[in-house]
């Protein structure tokens, strides 16, 4: 697996996710986010309904053909070769279009503009920082940690209690996913929840 071929993906195994919010808090702590901004959120559906309840962790999926990038009026997004979708907060005007375009609700808007209007958009960077100089103080303050540049795993997946949340090269992630499905011997599931929306067929 060479660097050129790698394409980073997120995968949250809803058979393992127990809604512990470790990922949410790890992300918030690592990037020192303001309290209202949750780059990653865990959502539980059908709570209390036997056999139907499930939990999943949602953040930016770094989609192929990212819709956020398509709709941005100021074109502040840029997509890395490995598929990680990032944006420039200095160009962003906080209009909210990316949020409307996003199937996963990833873009967050802190209310720190004039008269409490939305400030520049913030979202999961897959711990890959931003357009500023890698590992500089400015990058850290505006975008958070840049772990990808150090070859480390994003904190959310690193922290996941049950290793429901996995991130990495698409091939590796798909292999893990397939192994688990085979071990469970259950059903024929085409792809993890939300993958077709994010990464296309």
């Amino acid at each position, binding site marked *: 697996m060479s660097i050129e071929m790698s394409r980073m993906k997120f995968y949250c195994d809803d058979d393992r996710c127990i809604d512990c919010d470790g990922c949410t808090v790890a992300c918030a702590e690592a990037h020192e986010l303001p309290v209202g901004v949750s780059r990653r959120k865990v959502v539980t559906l059908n709570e209390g309904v036997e056999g139907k309840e499930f939990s999943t962790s949602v953040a930016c999926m770094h989609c192929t053909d990212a819709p956020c990038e398509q709709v941005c009026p100021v074109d502040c997004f840029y997509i890395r070769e490995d598929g990680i979708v990032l944006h420039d907060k200095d*160009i962003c005007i*906080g209009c909210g279009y990316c949020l409307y375009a996003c199937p996963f609700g990833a873009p967050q808007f802190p209310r720190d503009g004039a008269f409490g209007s939305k400030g520049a958009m913030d979202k999961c960077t897959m711990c890959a920082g931003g357009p500023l100089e890698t590992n500089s103080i400015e990058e850290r303050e505006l975008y958070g940690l840049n772990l990808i540049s150090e070859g480390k795993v994003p904190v959310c997946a690193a922290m996941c209690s049950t290793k429901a949340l996995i991130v990495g090269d698409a091939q590796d992630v798909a292999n893990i996913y397939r192994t688990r499905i085979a071990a469970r011997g259950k059903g024929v599931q085409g792809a993890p929840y939300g993958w077709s929306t994010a990464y296309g067929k």
Partner: protein
Amino acid sequence: MKHILLLCLTVLSGFASAVAGKVPLASHDIVPKNGGDLLVSSQMVENILDYQKYGDLFTYLQAHYFRAIFLGILIGVFIVFLLHYLIVGAKSFSHSGKKVLVYSIFKRVIHWTAALAFVVIIPTGLIMVFGKELGGGTFVLYARELHAIFTVVFIVSIFPMLLFWFVDMLPTWYDIKWVFMAGGYLSKKVTEVPAGKFNAGQKMWFWVATLGGMVMIMTGAAMYFQSFDFGIASSLGLTQIDLLRAAAIVHNIFAFAVLALFITHLYMSLFAIKGSLDSMVSGYKSEDELKYMHSVFYKKLKKEGKI
């Protein structure tokens, strides 16, 4: 259309419950974890599968059509009127006869306030639409802030305007005739044109500016506040994010109409009739102009003996 009407109605009624600030009884939705933010709740995951409803539509329209249409309108409408000015030219009327007071001081003040609002709102809106070409960043950001601030100015002026010109602007049967004549603007000749105090063209602009303007206010406010909960979304059977997407689409589409008719109004009131700008400053229109351009209104005034 139904969605838009419902939107208007429920906002007005929804304000009451807004003050109470209670969380709505959505079917699967328990009190959302993240401090009541409707965008972060079990709706979020349901929205992923529901993306086809408005998410796909919004992305497609915004990515491929909106900018092109805005550009088309800007250029197209401008060229149409440029050609008109060059080919047909302006109409002028004698100002030696009597003058009739048609706009009171209050109406003029309100009109100019609204005009000020439009003059800031529309260009700033266009700056945002073409933000990419303008480099984004601080410049476009300030445009966005101004766009929002001057909405307040707009609100203050547009509601009185709706009220005091409501009756005069109601459509009449002779408006159809006016439309077929294109208001007489296609010929250099000055002939009597069937119109009341306001002609069909003015009426169209009025309704787009007031009712359409209110739709703009509400959809714009929805996008501005983003995370609010007045029971609107649930009463329309939409999730919050779909409400925002619908608001964005409606806002843009109405903007087409507002932009087109605004340029038209500018041309009509600044260039097409000589001295019409004066009318909105002094409040008076010449008898001559009224006789030809607002013939029905003129006949009525004559009958009442005001002339």
